[in-house]
């Protein structure tokens, strides 16, 4: 089977269309970054509190907002998370609600605000820790155990926590669910309601980042991206000519700009893993560019008399089959990640889905034309045409 056989497309002739296309997306992204959504830094970078809450019933966002408002939490962002059938909500507090002294005060306030109608003196089993359950069982001793009490009640508490977290996905609907559950002793199931009640939610996941770490991480992410680009520039300058390095870095910068722009336009949070995806993308887009450059270098030696623009066109066409195939296959795996990888990886896979499309496009539409444009410019200035990259093989 073969998709591309003897293709001969004049890519360089279409450079103005490419330029227009790239400009539209870059400027739109840039515009959004400056004037609209700005750069939507995730909690890792801006600091703040994220609490992922699972409810036992479809959550009412307005009611939750009212509860939090009563607790004095100002402007929390509350949004449904993942599939609606999972009844999950993400509560996002501003960094103002996290103080240096008590980093977790926002989280504590949220839990207190949502644990309304709590019966006096009872603990919420949906948010009780393993240790709290075990300590209660040790005190109460419903199974009347002897020296093996510690071991047995550890197992009992573990069974209850397992039922709640692993079997039921985070929340118990009724204390009756303990009866007959695997590993839970009937005496324990009967004793639990004396000290515990059930709220209608459980906290699945908490992320709290203080303001100091946020700033530090932003600097680190910026530096990592910068060093990555510098590394490319140096390596390509060493392997080819410096203009190849510049072209590759401009290309990758273009990809990064459009990807971050897409995150800004869609107002999707840029988390630490998204930065990881962007760095991967830098590597990937560079791969594509290098494959074309390698072929240009090879062809320059074979076709000494031809114009650079013809050589470049020929090289892109020769590698087109590989470019599309690799992009397609990588896209396939990334798409699988985006569709089936779950909510936690959503931002990460989104960055890669966008990035692979843009990265493939840019190695053809941006990197190669820069080489030709540089050559034309040199010729216009009356200098010798570009030195042929032939070294370092």
């Amino acid at each position, binding site marked *: 089977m073969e998709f591309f056989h003897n293709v001969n497309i004049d890519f360089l002739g279409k450079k103005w269309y490419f330029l227009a296309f790239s400009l539209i997306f870059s400027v739109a992204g840039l515009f959004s970054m400056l004037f609209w959504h700005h750069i939507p830094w995730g909690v890792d970078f801006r600091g703040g509190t994220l609490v992922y809450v699972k409810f036992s019933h479809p959550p009412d966002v307005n009611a939750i907002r009212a509860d939090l408002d009563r607790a004095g939490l100002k402007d929390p962002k509350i949004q449904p998370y993942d599939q609606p059938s999972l009844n999950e909500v993400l509560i996002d507090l501003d960094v103002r609600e996290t103080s240096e002294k008590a980093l977790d005060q926002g989280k504590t306030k949220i839990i207190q605000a949502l644990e309304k109608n709590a019966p006096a003196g009872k603990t919420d089993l949906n948010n009780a820790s393993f240790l709290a359950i075990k300590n209660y069982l040790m005190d109460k001793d419903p199974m009347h155990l002897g020296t093996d009490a510690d071991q047995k009640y550890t197992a009992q508490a573990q069974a209850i*926590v397992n039922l709640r977290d*692993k079997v039921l996905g985070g929340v118990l609907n009724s204390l009756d669910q303990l009866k007959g559950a695997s590993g839970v002793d009937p005496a324990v199931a009967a004793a639990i309601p004396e000290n515990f009640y059930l709220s209608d939610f459980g906290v699945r996941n908490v992320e709290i*980042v203080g303001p100091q770490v946020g700033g530090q991480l932003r600097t680190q992410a910026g530096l990592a991206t910068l060093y990555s680009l510098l590394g490319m520039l140096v390596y390509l300058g060493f392997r080819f000519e410096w203009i190849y390095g510049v072209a590759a870095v401009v290309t990758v910068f273009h990809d990064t700009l459009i990807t971050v722009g897409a995150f800004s336009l869609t107002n999707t949070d840029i988390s630490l893993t998204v930065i990881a995806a962007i760095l991967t993308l830098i590597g990937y887009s560079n791969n594509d560019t290098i494959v074309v450059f390698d072929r240009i270098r090879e062809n320059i030696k074979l076709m000494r008399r031809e114009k650079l623009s013809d050589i470049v066109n020929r090289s892109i066409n020769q590698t087109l089959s590989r470019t599309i195939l690799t992009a397609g296959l990588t896209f396939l*795996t990334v*798409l699988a990640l985006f569709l*089936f990888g779950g909510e936690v990886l959503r931002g990460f896979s989104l960055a890669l889905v966008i990035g692979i499309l843009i990265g493939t496009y840019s190695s053809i539409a941006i990197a190669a034309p820069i080489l030709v444009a540089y050559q034309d410019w040199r010729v216009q200035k009356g200098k010798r045409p570009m030195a042929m990259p032939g070294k370092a093989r």
Partner: protein
Amino acid sequence: MNKNLLWKVVFIVGTMLFFLFGIFGIPKGLSGDALATALTDHIHLGLDLKGGTHLILQVHVNDAINVDAQNAIEVLKQQLKSRKIDFAEITQTDPQNNPDHILIKGVQPGARSDLLSIVQERLPEYEITGAPENSWNMVMKPSMVSDLKNKAVSQAIETIRNRIDALGVSEPTIQEHGLGQYQILVQLPGIDDPERVKDIMQSTAMLEIKQSLGGPYPSEQAARQDKGGVLPADAILLPGQSQPGAAEGQAWYLVSRVSAVSGKDLRDAQPSSDQNGQPSVSFTLTGEGGQRFYNFTSSHVGDSLAVVLDNKVKEVANIKEPIRDRGEISGGRMSDQQAKDLSMILRSGALPASISYLEERTVGPSLGADSIRSGVRAAVIGMVAVLIFMLVYYRGAGINADVALILNLIILLGFLGWSTIAGVNVALTLPGIAGVILTVGMGVDSNVLIFERIREELRNGKTPPSAVDQGFSHAWITIVDTHVTTIVSAAILFIFGTGPVKGFATTLTFGLLANLFTAVFVSRVIFDWILSRKQRGEALSI
């Protein structure tokens, strides 16, 4: 098969067995359950997959400098007094930001050589320079400052490790974090309610026994009034409880600035109960500390002493008779658990500096389980899609690529397994799984590059053996370039990233390294083997 080829095949099979051992070890059986247990034994999951708590702590290293500077001031005062040199005052000029800057004011003229010899002999970590009006500036040497700060961090790590170990958390990670910002990373797998652990880690547990000079007073003003408006220079006011059970800060005590004994003099601490049957902590002093305590109590019979924990007065008692080496902390509403925790904290030693929390992440076990499920599902779907495509598109050579991809996966997982065996513990995180998926996608690139090149050479009329040869040698240069650049960005990610992101960088890097081996070497051997079985002029399925 010729001999050269045979050796290569043996080498490949050996490598595979080596990495398969990394993944499974020697499983107890070949049933699905036995293999699954073997797998989970060898490949460790990161915190984001198995659930747990991730904390970043800031060590306030200036505390340690502060202690040293205050100590230096005490030494200076004593020495100057013993040499009968007058001085007006010795203070820290900026205790908040530069605790090591000490100003000595109003030293009597002509004391230069004495002062210099005191600093040289007793305080060699400081540098002293003269200032106008008979003043002197003392500053700690920069190398000593950074030394002291680093020591504070490593000591804090040690203390926190002792405490966490005593709590019985399995496989905790406690290490310095970041790039010289005096931070500590603590990861506690399986702890989904970190409150208690956090309190225990954060407790500085600075125990001091001081002389009580007055109190309890209902407020700070009352204490001042009682002493005629000015507090004695060698005394400080500390908050405490007016009676057992009352809230802290309701009463104030005037206590001596110097301590008779401190936490450093403890030999042991155990939970016990006081005379009222309430939970308390009893402690034993070391020989030297006991001697000092005996000297102190025998010269202060009839006076009161105060047990001070973290600058809060916990208990005040009358000294009825000299005490040698035992004491008790009670007071307050201590629960059994708190008494146990406090004695454990005291045994583990005091933190050299206070700490605060900068970052806290808790992953519930249910979320981790979900993440594994969806991550693995995405990996399997992506992998199968790629395998099928390669078979359809390249037919015979597709098998070649598929074998290479599967071997790539085995090497990558085997590497993770071997890291556990070697004790380095490179954990598989959720972004790490994404790294595995990406390796599959990007790994296939090498195969595509080579196959496309071989097809091109075949089109140009080359014979299959020479097309294969040319295809590999031309593609090799490109493959090296692409791998190096990707590994460069992965390496940078590894240096700057934390936790899960590091996991991603690791799997990506090793996936690509493994890919160099499988897509180039293994794939070439398979081609050579196929070619060796073909008649001259027979077509290659690609």
